[in-house]
């Protein structure tokens, strides 16, 4: 218990100090751009508990979840196929590298032509941007399966399907997760960016329109919401990772001790 308190204190002191500095440093601020934190928090309460949470934040998160799910499914699925099918992967690779090099957000205009400026376009953008790191990491992870394990699968007549589910995917999982983590954070970026164009609605749109209406207190409150969203998303990701990759985490900490 005392250790837990110590732990929180040793990690959290700087954050607390900065928040206090912000709070008291801006307490008497007259600046339009840097309103007092107290007012931002008041706005935060008025706007986000729970009016705009329902009208803007939840729809945004819904699109993020859908887009990200598609990205994971597509990235892992296609990555697995390409990773297993080497000759084809080698010819696809340069194309993948080229397309990936185009900044995802630069694709917004073309996505708008085909998918409009509403939900479909937004979900598709989030999905596409988040899929790249997942796809490339899955390919690498699948290709990096220990050759001895392939021999084991052959020597013990392990069926192809079972070899994929029990050997290839678990072996690639640490790398897939590394890609999925990057995918999540750029998916959140994409979520905000695509809401700044097109139809109104969503947290990104809220931040931009608040700024345009010179309601900077509301804008700041939106940024705080986004910070919380990113933080919680990462926390949830870590929980899932810990559950799936516990063997990998334990194994590595053991190697470090040894």
């Amino acid at each position: 218990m005392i250790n837990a308190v110590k732990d929180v204190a040793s990690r959290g002191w700087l954050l607390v100090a900065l928040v206090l500095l912000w709070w008291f440093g801006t307490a008497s601020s007259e600046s339009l751009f840097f309103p007092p934190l107290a007012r931002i928090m008041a706005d935060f309460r008025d706007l986000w508990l729970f009016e705009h949470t329902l009208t803007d934040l939840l729809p945004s998160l819904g699109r993020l979840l859908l887009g990200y799910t598609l990205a994971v499914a597509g990235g892992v699925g296609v990555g697995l196929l390409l990773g297993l099918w080497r000759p084809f992967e080698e010819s696809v690779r340069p194309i993948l590298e080229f397309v990936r090099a185009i900044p995802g957000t630069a694709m917004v205009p073309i996505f708008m032509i085909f998918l409009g400026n509403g939900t479909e376009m937004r979900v598709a953008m989030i999905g596409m941007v988040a899929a790249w790191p997942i796809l490339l990491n899955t390919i690498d992870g699948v290709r990096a399966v220990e050759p001895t394990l392939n021999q084991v699968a052959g020597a013990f007549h392990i069926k192809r399907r079972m070899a994929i589910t029990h050997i290839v995917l678990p072996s690639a999982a640490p790398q897939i997760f590394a890609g999925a983590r990057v995918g999540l954070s750029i998916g959140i970026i994409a979520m905000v960016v695509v809401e700044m164009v097109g139809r109104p609605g969503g947290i990104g749109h809220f931040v931009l329109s608040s700024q345009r209406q010179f309601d900077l207190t509301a804008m700041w409150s939106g940024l705080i919401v986004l910070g919380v969203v990113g933080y919680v998303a990462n926390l949830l990701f870590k929980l899932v990772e810990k559950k799936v990759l516990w063997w990998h985490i334990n194994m590595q900490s053991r190697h470090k001790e040894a």
Partner: protein
Amino acid sequence: MTTNNSTSANRSLLVEGLGHSYGDHQVLRDLSFEVEAGQFVSVVGPSGAGKSTLLQCLTGLRKPTAGQVSFHGERVSGTPQGMSIVFQDYSRSLMPWMSVADNVGLPLKSAGLNKTDRSARVQRALAEVGLAGNEAKYPWQLSGGMQQRVAIARALAFDPAAIVMDEPFASVDAQTRAELEDLVLGVRDHLGIMVLLVTHDIDEAVYLADRVLVLAGRPATLAADLPVGLPVPRDQVRTKALPLFGELRGEVLSLIQGSGVTAGAPR
């Protein structure tokens, strides 16, 4: 070709005129030998003599460029039924995301055995290698020697007539190595299976086997096929103190050195 084989040949491993080249580089030339059911044979040769290539050809993991291998009277292409392999490096051949029981049981699961049969076979195999009670552990929670026992148990659970081992004790310490050697001898006596052990360690080859096949030369040929007349059961101290043991290891060593290749240092 199975029609006119005798019963004994039907239960054995038969190698006829086996050769292998990687492109222009010939590694193995014209190897012919037979291993009978239940026999313990060591294949010894210096590092780089083509031992691994030979092993891969024998187990069907690699197609030889000349000659052929048959097991139980059938030509080998792909690892034949009834043959199990213990790979050199347990840290590469076991799956760290699976418990010991699942590692041993995966081939059985793939073969379609139901849960009850599977778990019975897994238990039996683990007991055979002295690992009963470790089913729920993970490979990385075990010592190196214990991990290699898991790999041996996986080979045994497959109910093989023969197990082929590729330098199986190369990555453990000397103490553990002696333990594992005696474990394998015990298993062979208990189950009466054929064991084919590939090693660069002359002492190990002589100590364990009924017969030692010496690979030497470049490309490697069969330099000798020596029966090992050492009394059984073998004993790490007494067997190795026998004059015959010294003579045999000397003979193998001179065969290998005579080929102009230095005997491999332990890797």
